């Protein structure tokens, strides 16, 4: 009887461990409820927000492509051959419409022969990545700040709102991504609302990404 009990326990432990290895949800990212709206034309709208400066993770690149400090943290720098290149990379924590952090966003602003482009990859671990490709002037935000009285190197308070793009269309296109965003296409509007710049050049304000998407045909 003892032998049978031992073998029964052995089989039970063996089977339970293999079952757990196969069926236990080893990775289960927190899935925050998606704050999407269904539009009258059948698409869906979802907005993402970035609160500056608290959501800034790292920034490096050309100071000409965006206002404020060229780098965060301040000692971050591109290696020498890229130091003078027309490229700026920003990284932010990304929030949903309720202000909850739901992802990590990378924004690359690159000067090209036919203008500048701002490209986003926003990773939402429980849902996948959404990829955005926008066209913008190389100094659209800096120019608006300068018109409002901001002088580089000095603190500034006020309100400046800039929607990136040519003013007639939305900033760019949503090209899909991974996970639940794979089959989607659409457009997006990138809007910066800047309410201040501190002495170190860090921006205060909000970046809003307004996405409208639908299933690709």
């Amino acid at each position: 009887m003892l032998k049978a009990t031992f073998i029964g326990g052995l089989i039970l432990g063996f089977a339970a461990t293999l079952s757990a290895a196969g069926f236990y949800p080893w990775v289960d990212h927190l899935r925050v409820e998606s704050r999407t709206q269904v539009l009258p034309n059948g698409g869906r709208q979802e907005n993402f927000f970035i609160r500056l400066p608290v959501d800034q993770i790292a920034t490096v690149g050309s100071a000409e492509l965006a206002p404020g400090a060229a780098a965060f943290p301040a000692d971050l720098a591109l290696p020498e051959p890229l130091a003078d290149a027309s490229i700026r990379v920003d990284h932010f924590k990304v929030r949903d419409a309720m202000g909850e952090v739901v992802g990590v966003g990378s924004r690359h602003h690159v000067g090209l022969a036919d203008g500048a482009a701002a490209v986003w990859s926003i990773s939402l671990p429980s849902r996948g990545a959404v990829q955005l490709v926008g066209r913008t002037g190389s100094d659209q935000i800096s120019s608006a700040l300068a018109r409002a009285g901001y002088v580089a190197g000095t603190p500034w308070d006020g309100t400046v709102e800039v929607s990136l793009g040519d003013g007639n269309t939305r900033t760019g296109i949503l090209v899909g991504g991974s996970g639940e965003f794979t089959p989607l296409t659409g457009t997006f509007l990138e809007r910066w609302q800047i309410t201040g710049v501190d002495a170190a050049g860090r921006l205060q304000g909000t970046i809003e990404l307004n996405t409208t998407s639908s299933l690709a045909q």
Partner: protein
Amino acid sequence: MKYLITLLLGLAVGVTMAAGLLYVNPLAIDSGQVLAEADDVFGFDSPLTGELAFASDGLSRLTSHPSGVPDLWETAIVKSALSVIALKDSTGVPVGVASRVSYPAETTELLTTGVLLNDDWLVSLPDSGSFFVTSQANWWPFLKETVIPIWYFGQPWSGSSAIDPTIGPDSSGHAIVTGATGEFVGRFGNATEHYDVREFDTQVGPSQLAAELRVAWRNE
């Protein structure tokens, strides 16, 4: 009482046997395959020594750096890591910047797949443009053969090891590349990652490595 003890003993032996079987599990997906032919090969260094910036949850062995980079402590992103990487050409000259956000895949299971990691890359080359790389990698072979023996069994570093972790998400077993701007607009392709680990720090992991992102563009 003796039956209870016998049952528990049997359970312990069963669990140990199953854990041993899982460790050498022949069912788990093996390493990926590197792209045989690539149009572009970008080199990069270890996150410990060569990355521009790195952000993690702040509790893992590899901490956020440089000083001032905030930790990714919020619940929805706490298992994620951000790497800001300088990409080099074949001569070692930096030619671009990549941002890579990595997080464990929810399809991870230890019976038939392994430890899967999703990588969302955004790559930009000044004057040329940007492209996305969507990648899934299986790190179980590296964990099994290198990390676990060193970190948990106290074994010494056995020397250089080569890793080809990319297994998808494309059906070919490669990562998916999508052109975004500049000369990459409208282009698609595949990519794989390759790592040669040359030094392994017993505290934090690979301290010296030569890594490659290999990209093959499709003609469409």
